[in-house]
């Protein structure tokens, strides 16, 4: 009971903070932008969900509050270049690189280069990583400190979640025999995604899981794992399904199964990316509606604001659920893929 109350308090705190700050920060921007040109909600929203070279916190894009982030570029001709993204604002182009209208870096003369900049999303990943590591090392320490005792404080908030991942995801999907090997991976995936999603709900923070590259990386890790750990039984069923005529296998079954191997992590990627990105887009859309209406007159904007806020509030609450759900679904499906790779032949006599 106590754990539940604490969890709710935490969620409500996060929720309240994210909601109110979302509105204040988001509302500042288009209001000022609108004075210069007609408000373009599509551009505004995509600007907010895509990656940036600076960490923009509040205010208009030029002259607002933003944290410059390091840009790391490497090209064969010029070697390694590391500089702050604010350099782009000071003058047009820096070291032969400049920011184009879409916010991408271009080399002068169209030369090719490698971009390993610490963008806003990378910074978000780092933040989520540091937070995850700090939280769980501190929890681990409280386990060491209170050895053989009942959990207390933050430890008792986290413990049911750890047990949930271990018992209801890992043990259930992978099975008694192998689950211990994959528990650390699944726990890390679950908490990393969840914490990233939570960070993404805080306005001005990057919604990293809504970035396709991040989702791609995590799914690629899952793909590589499933490719390496698959046992004989698993590969036999994919490449040469027993008990099916040969021509069916060559023409139909094997190609489908091979596509399936890649399609499953691909779906994993799309699901988490689309859910988180869509959530952000919907919230931003509701906020944008105010400014779309206010273009017809101030009264329209003020009049629609409460309705818009009510919807944005509802969506924020939904997003809190989605943040957990997506972490859970990603971890659960990963566990199920791993489980299917390790499945023992239980009807061997049929083949």
């Amino acid at each position, binding site marked *: 009971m106590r754990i539940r109350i604490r969890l709710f308090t935490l969620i409500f705190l996060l929720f309240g903070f994210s909601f109110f700050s979302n509105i204040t920060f988001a509302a500042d921007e288009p209001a000022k932008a609108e004075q210069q040109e007609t408000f373009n909600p*599509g*551009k505004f929203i*995509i600007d907010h*969900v*895509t*990656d940036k070279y600076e960490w923009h916190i509040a205010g208009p894009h030029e002259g607002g509050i933003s944290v410059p982030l390091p840009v*790391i570029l490497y090209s064969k001709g010029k070697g390694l270049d590391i500089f702050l993204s604010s350099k782009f604002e000071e003058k047009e182009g820096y070291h032969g690189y400049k920011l184009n209208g*879409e916010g991408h870096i271009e080399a002068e003369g169209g030369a090719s280069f*490698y*971009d*390993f*900049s*610490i*963008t806003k*999303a*990378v910074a978000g*990943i*780092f933040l989520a*990583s540091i937070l*995850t*590591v700090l939280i*769980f*090392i501190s*929890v*681990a320490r409280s*386990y*060491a400190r209170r*050895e*053989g005792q009942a959990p207390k404080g933050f430890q008792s908030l986290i*413990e049911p979640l*750890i*047990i949930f991942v*271990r018992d209801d995801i890992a043990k259930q999907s992978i099975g008694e025999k192998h689950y*211990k090997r994959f*528990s*650390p*991976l699944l*726990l*890390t995936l679950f908490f*990393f995604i969840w914490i990233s999603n939570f960070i993404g709900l805080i306005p001005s923070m990057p919604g*990293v899981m809504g*970035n*396709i*590259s*991040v989702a*791609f*990386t*995590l799914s*690629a*890790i899952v793909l590589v794992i499933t490719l390496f750990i698959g046992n004989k039984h698993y590969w036999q069923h994919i490449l040469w399904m027993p008990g099916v005529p040969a021509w069916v296998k060559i023409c139909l079954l094997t190609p489908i199964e091979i596509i399936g191997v890649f399609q499953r992590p691909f779906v994993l990627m799309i699901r988490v990316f689309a859910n988180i*990105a869509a959530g952000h887009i919907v919230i931003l859309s509701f906020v944008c509606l105010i400014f779309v209406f206010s273009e017809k007159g101030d009264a329209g904007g003020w009049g629609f604001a409460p309705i818009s806020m009510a919807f944005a509030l509802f969506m924020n609450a939904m997003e809190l659920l989605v943040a957990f759900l997506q972490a859970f679904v990603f971890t659960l499906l990963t566990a199920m893929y791993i489980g299917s790779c390790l499945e023992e032949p239980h009807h061997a006599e049929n083949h």
Partner: protein
Amino acid sequence: MTIGILLLSPLLTPSYGLIVWTLLAFLIVLYLLKKLAWKPILKSLQEREDSIQNAIDTAKKAREEMTSLKSDHEKIVAQAKTDRDTILKEAREMKDKMIAEAKNLAAKEGERMITNARESIQNEKMAAITDLKNQVAHLSIEIAEKILKQELSEKDKQKTVITNLLQEVKMN
């Protein structure tokens, strides 16, 4: 439609820089957490679960022992009760038997004594009677001698006396 795709395209374009950083960050997080967090946490969770299970098992065992001890105790008590009862019963039987034997013996002894007494009385009586008879015989002979001496002094008288006597004897 075209506008939509154009708007979404930056969303759907992966950037390799971000992929590399994400991979690096995630693998470091995975390594660190595996070493520093999950291993000790999962270990102590397992230990705690085991110790709870052990405690439950031990309590159950202790309870079972208690019940078995209790039933043992009850058995012993019951045994003691039956033992006592049999001992009492045996004692009672023995007492009855002893009393009966003693009574029997006493009765026999009494009878024997009575018979003895009777025999000795009989003997005494017989001796007395014999003695009496002897004395009577003796006296009778003496009397008879005297009478005969007297009677036989005269012939007639002798004759009558003899005849009378004979008659008397015959009558007796």
